[in-house]
């Protein structure tokens, strides 16, 4: 069955354009001379200059990156090993623990935020990077766990058995066979988890403590008090970085595939 009309494609295109419209305006106004976003007054790069000198914003960006990397790293280890282990054990508690571990992405963020605020105060944990990492790890784990779990289902068990049969120890089998095979799932889980962590306001705002700002929190406060186009400039930089990374990874992926076929 071939599509006879172009209507669906037009629909997809229109929605996509609307999706990108706000971003386009953010980017455009990052080059605006005026501080106001109501009218275009002329091209300027001055907001990029002030961004460069804005230490608060740079620090917040750095905090967000550190937070994302740390929580992703911890979740990747716990989530990946957990998913592999869960596939093997047969405990009665397995189902319920799995359910609880995925709760953080099922329940509204606001609840998670308040729950952590209450719980960390109870434990007397100092609010700051530690509490942020713990909170973010809880909602990063499910992304990685579920991805790896789904991938493991698709892998023939006898592949790992074949490695052991050929003389590999269990540990060696894990590093030679299982890990490379689930790596794509771990990676895409991490990417998703990092994106979620990097963008989180609701949970962070509860547990960040008085001194530490993440980028989204900084933006949030600015949005409530008054935005300067530095934010636009920062967003543009992030956007370009993301597109650049995506371009590189897909190019690398394509090249890898071509060399496979070429030989």
């Amino acid at each position, binding site marked *: 069955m071939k599509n006879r009309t172009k209507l669906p494609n037009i629909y997809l295109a229109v929605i996509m354009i609307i999706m990108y419209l706000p971003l386009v305006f953010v980017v455009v106004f990052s080059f605006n001379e005026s501080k106001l976003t109501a009218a275009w007054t002329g091209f300027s790069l001055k907001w990029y200059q002030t961004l460069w000198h804005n230490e608060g914003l740079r620090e917040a960006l750095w905090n967000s990156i550190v937070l994302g990397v740390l929580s992703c790293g911890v979740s990747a280890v716990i989530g990946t090993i957990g998913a592999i282990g869960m596939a093997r054990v047969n405990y009665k508690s397995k189902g319920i623990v799995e359910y609880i571990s995925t709760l953080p992405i099922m329940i509204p963020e606001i609840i998670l935020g308040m729950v952590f605020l209450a719980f960390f105060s109870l434990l007397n944990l100092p609010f700051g990077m530690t509490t942020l990492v713990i909170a973010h790890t809880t909602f990063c784990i499910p992304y990685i766990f579920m991805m790896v779990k789904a991938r493991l289902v698709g892998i*023939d068990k*006898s*592949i790992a*058995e*074949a*490695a*052991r*049969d*050929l*003389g*590999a*120890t*269990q540990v*060696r089998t894990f590093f*030679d*066979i299982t890990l*490379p*095979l689930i790596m794509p799932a771990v990676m895409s889980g991490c990417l998703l988890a990092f994106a979620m962590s990097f963008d989180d306001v609701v949970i962070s705002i509860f547990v960040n403590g008085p001194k530490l700002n993440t980028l989204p929190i900084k933006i949030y406060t600015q949005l409530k008090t008054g935005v300067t186009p530095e934010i636009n400039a920062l967003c543009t930089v992030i956007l370009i970085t993301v597109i650049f990374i995506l371009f590189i990874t897909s190019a690398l992926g394509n090249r890898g595939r071509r060399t*496979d*076929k070429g*030989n």
Partner: protein
Amino acid sequence: MEDSILELKGIEKSFGSSEVLNGIDLKIKKGEFITFLGSSGCGKTTTLRIIAGLEMPDKGQVILEGRDVTGLEPHERDVNTVFQNYALFPHMNVEANVGYALKLRRMPKPEIKEKVKKILELVQLSGYEKRMPQELSGGQKQRVAIARALVNNPKVLLLDEPLGALDLQLRRAMQLELKKLQKKLGITFLYITHDQEEAINMSDRIVVMNKGVLEQIGTPDEVYNHPMSSYVATFVGNANIVRGKIVQIQGEEALVEISTGKIKVIIDPNREQIGQEITIAVRAENILVCEECKEALPAVILEKSFSGGQLRMVIGLEDGKEIIASRYGIDSHVQIGQKVCVGWKPADAIIVDREEQNDEKETF
């Protein structure tokens, strides 16, 4: 037996409450091609996995070249497996797949390359070193799997229905090739299949398994022509099973009364006596169908079908019991619904289930 390479002693295994293996005892000779034949769920794959070390037996021992290896991990045993669905490492090319075992043994790279090249030549896959598994056809994958398992020079090569996923023609060709390979290398092959034809074509000895026990061990000829149990007779020889009571004995010939008549059977006078209940197996191709014959049972043709160069007839006896008969070629004389007589030469009836004829359940 001095030259036994692998020995299984009283292996038992159950998963949960279901018993899968119920006391397996077997000695396998060096250089032998031995086949485990049985329907799915008979425990043949579990036996193989226990030998490979992928499964632990609940009881019993696995002895490889006189050494007890029961508790050893798979990587500590000198046996290798060709898995049913190939189980090639999808992220490694053919060369890396085949050389994996050598790499684990820290063999220097040039040496690995040399060995891999040789073994690929052996399985006729030279020049495929850099291909990825997903770029190979089913038959090629199979060859890689075999090469990978052979490169280590295992004491015993375990093959778990390796040809199951291939189409009929390729399967036949691979059967011959495998057999040749085994003769050339002199490695003991332990082969698993549910295909009786495959087992008969390739094996030195066949082990027929049913419900976790070994029903019969013997050469293809023994298993096919002298089945010991009704299971072996039906599974390997497509035999009909008939039960009856000996009413008269004359030398080696006995007259057996079955539900719808009397018929002659060759017996062993030392073991059988008048009044005894016996189970006899008659292979489908030995069933005689005639319009009027002596010492035969009245019957009616119920179905006929043609497959694999054979005409297959289902014939109903008067009490409703069905007998299968087969012929080569298309026999157009018999019609469905036609009344006929069925019988067999006394020598074609084989007495089976001798020890356990009393508690045997109805097979048909």
